[in-house]
């Protein structure tokens, strides 16, 4: 018998007991729908995390100073004041480094006319947008000349600009930072919250200005380094380490007076957590799919019992074992595959509803849909084969006499 003939038989049979077929499929529908929706949520979460982390800056290495050593007392990491602007500019000379932004920040009061807000005042250089993945919405960013000449110019984060009631027409106007007048040079585009800190709530001014007017040191707090490519992160880390050790004149036995954090490690950890989450959700959903498969097996066994006489008749008029086997197997497969397809539709609708109502980011990947449908077909074969075999091996004489 051809597949078409078998499908025709299966469909006409399923059509004669619509309610039973629908209820049997319901198990698979729920299973597949939950696989689609839950894996969608898992992957959506994963891609949100990845997107937010890469918003921190691509291929980012963060160099921070080490601990102070006061006699036998070791201070906290980052408490030392060993990093300088000169360190930053020499790191910029390394081959694998694309951009370097030294940072020196503190809290301060910013005033525009009658409005004021307390925010982060961050001193840096012209590479800052490249290193930290900012884009300018209006005006322009600090230039090398601004830093060199210690000009009092400022670029506002999106949140700070809103807090101060400043829009794109504010470029060129004057604001007060820590009591000193600054010219507004640009406004950043909003970036969103990546970690625990709102990256849009800050005022960026030349690092030289911070050193001159606010802190009075020659040090910087951190140096952000954007590495040319993902592959050269380790090489760049090694190069920066040896460069800084040389510049800080450390003896070969001395420990580093700085540390280098790799953004990619954080990203990998986060994505492995969300991959585990996806796997977990998918696993839970798969269990309901298997339960659906058992439902199919149950109904197929009942069906074989009920149709014993029909099987006997079919055998008497020339059906071979494999014809009966194929008939029942295709019936089970039709139930599960149809359930799988309906389940995908229900899953898509559920995902759409969840992302609309719950604000969840959901990623629907065609591979997930394909795997869910394929898995439901596999369930159909797996749980259909035993009932079908029972039907196929029935003795025609006993089956014909069965009432």
């Amino acid at each position, binding site marked *: *018998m051809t597949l078409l*003939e078998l499908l*025709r038989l299966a469909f006409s*049979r399923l059509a*004669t007991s619509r309610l039973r077929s629908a209820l049997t499929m319901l198990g698979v529908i729920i299973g597949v729908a939950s696989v689609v929706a839950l894996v969608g949520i898992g992957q959506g979460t994963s891609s949100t995390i990845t997107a937010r982390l890469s918003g921190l800056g691509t291929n980012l290495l963060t160099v921070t100073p080490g601990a102070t050593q006061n006699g036998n007392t070791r201070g906290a990491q980052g408490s030392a004041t060993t990093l300088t602007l000169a360190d930053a500019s020499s790191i910029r000379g390394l081959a694998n480094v694309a951009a370097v932004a030294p940072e020196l920040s503190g809290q301060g009061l910013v005033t525009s006319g009658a409005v004021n807000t307390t925010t982060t005042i961050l001193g840096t250089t012209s590479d800052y947008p490249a290193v930290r993945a900012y884009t300018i919405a209006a005006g322009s960013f600090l230039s090398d000349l601004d830093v060199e000449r210690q000009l009092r110019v400022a670029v506002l984060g999106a949140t700070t600009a809103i807090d101060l009631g400043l829009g794109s027409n504010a470029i060129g106007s004057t604001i007060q930072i820590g009591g000193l007048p600054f010219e507004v040079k640009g406004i950043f585009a909003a970036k969103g919250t990546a970690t625990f800190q709102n990256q849009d709530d800050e005022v960026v001014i030349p690092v030289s200005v911070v050193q001159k007017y606010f802190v009075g040191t020659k040090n910087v707090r951190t140096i952000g380094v954007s590495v040319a490519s993902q592959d050269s992160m380790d090489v760049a880390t090694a190069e920066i380490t040896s460069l800084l050790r040389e510049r800080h004149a450390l003896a070969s036995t001395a420990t580093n007076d700085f540390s280098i954090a790799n953004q990619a490690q954080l990203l990998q950890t986060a994505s492995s957590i969300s991959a585990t989450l996806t796997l977990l959700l998918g696993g839970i959903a798969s269990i309901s799919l298997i339960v659906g498969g058992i439902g199919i097996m149950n109904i197929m066994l009942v069906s074989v019992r009920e149709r014993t*006489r*029909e099987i*006997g*008749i*079919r*055998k*008497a*008029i*020339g*059906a*071979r*074992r*494999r*014809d009966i086997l194929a008939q029942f197997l295709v019936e089970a497969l039709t139930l599960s595959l149809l359930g799988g397809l309906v389940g995908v539709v229900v899953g898509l609708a559920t995902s759409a509803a969840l992302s609309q109502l719950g604000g969840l980011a959901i990623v629907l990947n065609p591979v997930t849909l394909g795997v869910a449908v394929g898995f439901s077909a596999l369930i159909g074969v797996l749980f259909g084969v035993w009932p079908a075999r029972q039907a196929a091996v029935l003795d*025609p*004489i006993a089956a*014909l006499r069965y009432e």
Partner: protein
Amino acid sequence: MTTSIVSLRRVTRLYRTRDIEVPALVDASLEVAAGEFVAIVGPSGSGKTTLMNVVGCLDRPTSGTCAIDGTDVATLDDDGLARLRSHTIGFVFQSFNLLPRTTALENVATPLLYQGVGRRDRRARAARVLDRLGLSDRIHHEPPELSGGQQQRVAIARALVTEPALILADEPTGNLDSHTGADMLALLRELNREGVTIVMITHDPLVAASASRQVHIADGRLVA
């Protein structure tokens, strides 16, 4: 000598129930030539159903040889038996045994499905046979919508559609009233005149009288 459609040589069929062996058929020898209409007559429990199962290739003899249309069933596996049933034998049962929730046309076409005949061809051939048996206005009816006589005609049409060498009828009038039963026997005689070989099993001597030859069976033994 004419060709034998059925050739049983000293066929014995034993059934094993627990430790006791029950002989249902003992040393049965029977030749049915092409074009014959043979009635096998015997009371219930005489072994006639066992004989029918063996001749119908639903069962195998415990000993002896059974050849149907020249093929020894001992040489065939289950699929081989199924193929022999499909091409050589048409069954007519006492309780009609039509497929439930299936139209008369599809019922009659089903044996052709197992021969691998295409759907269009199947339906055309089934419609022709139903037409010949006077059921052309009933082809889209399902079994419960048909009278007993009509159901048995559909069953005969299903047996005929493959143009088998042998029609095997098991109490074909058993579930019919006497008037419809007489019609059915007339139909079988007519088919036999047209050249169809028929073996009919019955307990009723009056029914058996329709056949051109009677073979009696008692306690598993054939009496010519």
